[in-house]
């Protein structure tokens, strides 16, 4: 009914700045063009529409970047972002992997969002975000270009994350003065989901991860939660599109109670008694999957794990893409404190 749609559009427009609304609506429109009802994805058009940016070994605003192969045979690339220490205007290619010099250097392994299907490590929105993270955390950021659905289903993204973690962990040039790499995992949307699963694997393999940062992480389940029903279609996201992405990512025939989607659901792993990294979970109050995200936080708490919930009542998805709202700054401050407190 036209009337209700009117209300919906006005609602989302009222809670974000206009340019944010334009940005996210643009993604929504583009993404609608890409998802086909039969579960296939218009990958060519997706790559055509996605705005990308090359790495840049020339520092811009104190950060330079370059791309590396984590795994040559699978073409798994990551983009590395490093702070430029005000030295030369140009970083030598030979210096790209120069050892970090500070006492403690956090290394943030970042997994971009896109509901497992969209975006890449070189998408401009994520390149921009990673550069900010370098600045606020004085960290090296490693953004993983993981394989995407529907061409590559579970567990490909997790496998790639795991490969990246191992790679980072074994780089001597990333070691702090204590000869250890100080690793944090961070991600938004599907990236947040990947963070959880890679952290699990890390724990099981005794690789220490100092903290998990989950920004609007993508979780779900078979049940239709209150928030899903209440916010369906209201703030850029619909239940229908969420369902599409899970169908594209999960193994064929699996439902949304699969542990990849629902880690604390009926098929989830028990986290009691294991040394899971502390977590910072950011939940946007206008995100339709917030009940699943809140359940995730509760799940961690019940398992005796350390978790901080940052609930931003009036935030929508994507608020962290543009520095034009208070939520953005709140989150950046929290991330900075989270990564910093662990010297």
């Amino acid at each position: 009914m036209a009337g209700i749609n009117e209300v919906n559009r006005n609602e989302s427009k009222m809670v974000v700045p206009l340019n944010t609304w334009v940005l996210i609506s643009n993604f929504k429109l583009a993404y609608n063009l890409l998802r086909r009802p039969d579960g296939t994805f218009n990958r060519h058009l997706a790559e055509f529409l996605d705005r990308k940016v090359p790495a840049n070994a020339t520092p811009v605003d104190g950060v330079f970047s370059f791309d590396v192969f984590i795994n040559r045979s699978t073409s798994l690339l990551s983009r590395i972002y490093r702070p430029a220490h005000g030295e030369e205007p140009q970083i030598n290619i030979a210096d790209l992997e120069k050892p970090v010099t500070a006492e403690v250097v956090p290394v943030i392994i970042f997994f971009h969002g896109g509901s497992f299907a969209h975006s890449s490590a070189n998408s401009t929105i994520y390149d921009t975000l990673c550069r900010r993270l370098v600045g606020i955390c004085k960290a090296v950021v490693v953004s993983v270009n993981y394989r995407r659905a529907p061409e590559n289903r579970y567990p490909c993204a997790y496998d790639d994350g795991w490969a990246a973690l191992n790679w980072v962990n074994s780089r001597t040039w990333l070691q702090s003065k204590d000869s250890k790499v100080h690793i944090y995992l961070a991600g938004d949307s599907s990236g947040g989901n990947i963070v959880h699963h890679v952290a699990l694997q890390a724990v099981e393999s005794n690789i220490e991860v100092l903290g998990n940062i989950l920004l609007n992480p993508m979780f779900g389940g078979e049940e239709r939660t209150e928030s899903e029903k209440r916010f369906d279609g209201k703030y850029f996201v619909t239940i229908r599109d969420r369902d599409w992405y899970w169908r594209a990512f999960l193994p064929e025939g699996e439902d949304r109670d699969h542990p990849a989607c629902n880690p604390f659901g009926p098929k989830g792993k028990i986290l009691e008694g294991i040394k899971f990294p502390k977590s910072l979970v950011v939940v946007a109050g206008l995100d339709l999957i917030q009940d699943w995200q809140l359940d995730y936080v509760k799940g961690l708490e019940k398992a005796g794990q350390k978790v901080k919930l940052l609930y931003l009542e009036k935030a929508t998805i994507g608020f962290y893409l543009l520095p034009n709202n208070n939520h953005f700054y709140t989150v950046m401050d929290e991330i900075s404190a989270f990564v910093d407190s662990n010297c």
Partner: protein
Amino acid sequence: MNKRNRRDISGGAGNGGIRKSDFQSMSSGKAKIWEEEQDAGGGGGVDELLAVLGYKVKCSEMNDVADKLEQLEMVMGAAPNLLCDTVHYNPSDLSGWLQSMLSELNNPPNTLNYRMLQSHHIDDPLHVRAESSSVTTNPQQQQFETTQSARIYDDDSEYDLRAIPGSAAYPQTQDGELNRKRLKTSGGSNSAPPLLPSSSPIVGVAAAGTVSEPTRSIVLVDSHETGVQLVHTLMACAEAVQQDNLKLADALVKRVELLAASQAGAMGKVATYFAEALARRIYKIYPQDCLDASSSDILQMHFYETCPYLKFAHFTANQAILEAFATASKVHVIDFGLKQGMQWPALIQALALRPGGPPAFRLTGIGPPQADNMDALQQVGWKLAQLAEAIGVEFQFRGFVANSLADIDPSMVDVRPDEAVAVNSVFELHPMLARPGAIDKVLSSIKSMKPKIFTIVEQEANHNGPFFVERFNEALHYYSSLFDSLEGSGLVPPTQDLLMSEVYLGEQICNVVASDGADRVERHETLTQWRARMGMAGFEPVHLGSNAFRQASMLLALFAGGNGYRVEENNGCLMLGWHTRPLIATSAWQLIVSDSP
């Protein structure tokens, strides 16, 4: 803790609350460039925050863009599949992109009426007319739709790609099968991408003289110890050369040769070529006036076979040319570097398939003087004539020998008033930068030919900076990626083609590193730089769209296993790169049509 400026942040520019220290919006040159254009054009600025993310939206247009988004959402909500076969252009120009979709929806598919596409040149009689593009069939269905005189090109890329010459194009196909495919396609439906010149006054023109800081895009292939040492030493050697410390440079170059010998793979090869070039520079053994034209053509043929760069160049340029020629009955292509004419069979075939029949096709091929007296140009022209005759395209060829494109007098080229002209340059413009005034003369000649379209393919790199070390480093990164991609072709043992391709690239390396002045012809510049130059010369971009993008991607899958090659869209141009490093860029141009009647 929050000492931020909390200005009202709703609506409009959304620039409130930015904290300078950590969050200074990275203009990365883009927003600045667009803003400068706007100031020049008299409009408002672009939204800086969106510009950083790759979207150009004028602040004054934000509300309008929002309205368009809402409209589209309404329509899409009702009928989600309406736009599934649309061709898209230049997604950075949000307003234009949205408008083109709205226009498309206002003229739903299955209506065969002609319509003028929306643009700010709407009253201009020279403005391109094209038809509504939506195809309701997919290539698999191959439905036949009745056509009117000037129709649009099928997105059935399978055929187009097979017309590309080269042994790789005919893997195990018999000629029979090829003919069957050809027949099948000629009865097929056709949908053309509407030709949309930039509908927004924001064109990719940088403010005069300013190009944002160079982007050094590096994909680190080799983290191995020797690899790093090799690079270190090479760069130190270049540094020594620049400082005229030839004794040190000599010692270093010998060290490089040693290290390179024990370095397997692409890195070792690249290092060897760079070392050789450095040695020439140090010992002042400048390359003799390089290879003669025919040897150089042969090397390029090998390069053509081994990797997809040239095929991509030809393919994307041809796409733009085809679209520009959509309604013309007489067409004339002026090729600035005919060589073996590899670009043209596919175009001739595509023209043959044009519904309503092919146009009369004239090709003017330009080439350098040949050492022997054989008329190489005529030979190529003759072969193309045979092909054209075999498939029923009226064809005329003319060859021109010229030492330099700057020597060409436009009147010699015999451009006729009733024909649509395309000028095509694949890697032929950058040598013009070696002599002062040459490029301006060439561009001016081109303008007087009044081309419908001017296609340019160039290396995506800045190898023309004023400082030796800078050029050296840039070239090192660039050719490392290129060699790595050759390596990626996985040909073991390496074929003749692969080895010759390396020699071909080695010649370029030698020129960039060891030559100077008028001899240094490999003066590659980036798309950003070419855009500025073209804008100042009076050209505006013609955008390549999602259909060309998609077909180019499919071409890569066909010829290169798709493996590390990536097509990227950049403000209406297409680039081919190796993983995340763009290596060549195709752009298309037309003369700026003045607004006044």
